[in-house]
């Protein structure tokens, strides 16, 4: 695995994403759900909302880095708020 140039932070990053994916897969099997339509007027399942959250969080982090440029961990708080919004209303 040397050629992949692993670092601890990136390993943790991928581990978190993998854990999220596995958790949501298990949830989808244990508790099947009906897709619902939220403020975006598109049908979403939990998995869709997770995807929207993760993709949005990437852009939030980039925007934070580009505009604020310091205290990057605080961007995660914005991401959490965004995640709550997505899971509640989208």
């Amino acid at each position, binding site marked *: 695995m*040397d*050629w*992949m*140039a*692993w*670092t601890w*932070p*990136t390993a943790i*990053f*991928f581990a978190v994403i993998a854990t999220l994916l596995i958790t949501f897969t298990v949830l*989808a*099997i244990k508790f*099947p*759900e*009906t*897709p619902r339509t939220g403020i975006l007027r*598109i*049908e979403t*399942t939990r*998995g869709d909302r997770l*995807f*929207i959250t993760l*993709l949005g969080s*990437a*852009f939030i982090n*980039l925007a934070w*880095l*580009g505009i604020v*440029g310091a205290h*990057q961990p605080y961007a995660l708080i914005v991401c959490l708020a965004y995640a709550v919004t997505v899971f509640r209303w989208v």
Partner: protein
Amino acid sequence: MEKTVNQKAWFLVLPVLLLVAFSAVIPLMTVVNYSVQDTFGNNQFFWAGLEWFEEMLRSERMWDALGRQLMFSGIILAIEIPLGIFVALNMPKSGFWSSFCLVLMSLPLLIPWNVVGTIWQIFGRVDIGLLGYTLDALGINYNYTQDILAAWVTIIVMDVWHWTSLVALLAFAGLKSIPDAYYQAAKIDQASRWKVFRFIELPKMMGVLMIAILLRFMDSFMIYTEPFVVTGGGPGNATTLLSIDLVKMALGQFDLGPAAAFSIMYFLVILLISWVFYTVMTNLDKREG
């Protein structure tokens, strides 16, 4: 009560997932690892944190390339979509000539990208190319290797030549699906040609046009081969689009860190557009179905 969705069928795609993991996910993870490190070769890496992302976000070079990219996609969409609709509207609706037109228009779509680039690269040359020679003979100063405007015109005309047929074919398919009764009703109401287009044809084509717009946007946003073969990104950096710039950075300069950060941001934009594409398509299907 609505039926719950059984997501277990997704396990059937596991083999594909493994294949994609091997060909795309693992390389992409490596890119993420590169993006937070610096290297001087020899497979030795040093932690750089978010430095490359910051550098790329503040890099004029990247924003300029993005600007050029958006301009390119914007221009080709503004030409190809109306032109494609116009062609579709004027095509014979049935019979031999209809099939003939369809086959003729599919031809550019079947030509490989690098060949399209080479065709236009030669076509535009002042010494041996028909287009370049003719323009030169007419007294128009046309040289795509030195003149920015000529280079842009060449790559745009090339893309229009290559891909307008796709829009036309999609629009034609949309037009064919309109039942005759709509036209008869319009005739009874004495609707003008414009009104038939505005209130019958356009709304009925909306679905396929949406697909055409998104497909063309995606494709043009990732375009590499054709402009690279024709202009190589020049003159200067005038036609250096995002992917051309990325390849220059990653393979030309071997700046793995910045190029990795650049790729990730590029990938995120593509992912966002793909998601919009997928969502719009599936929602259109649901509304129509």
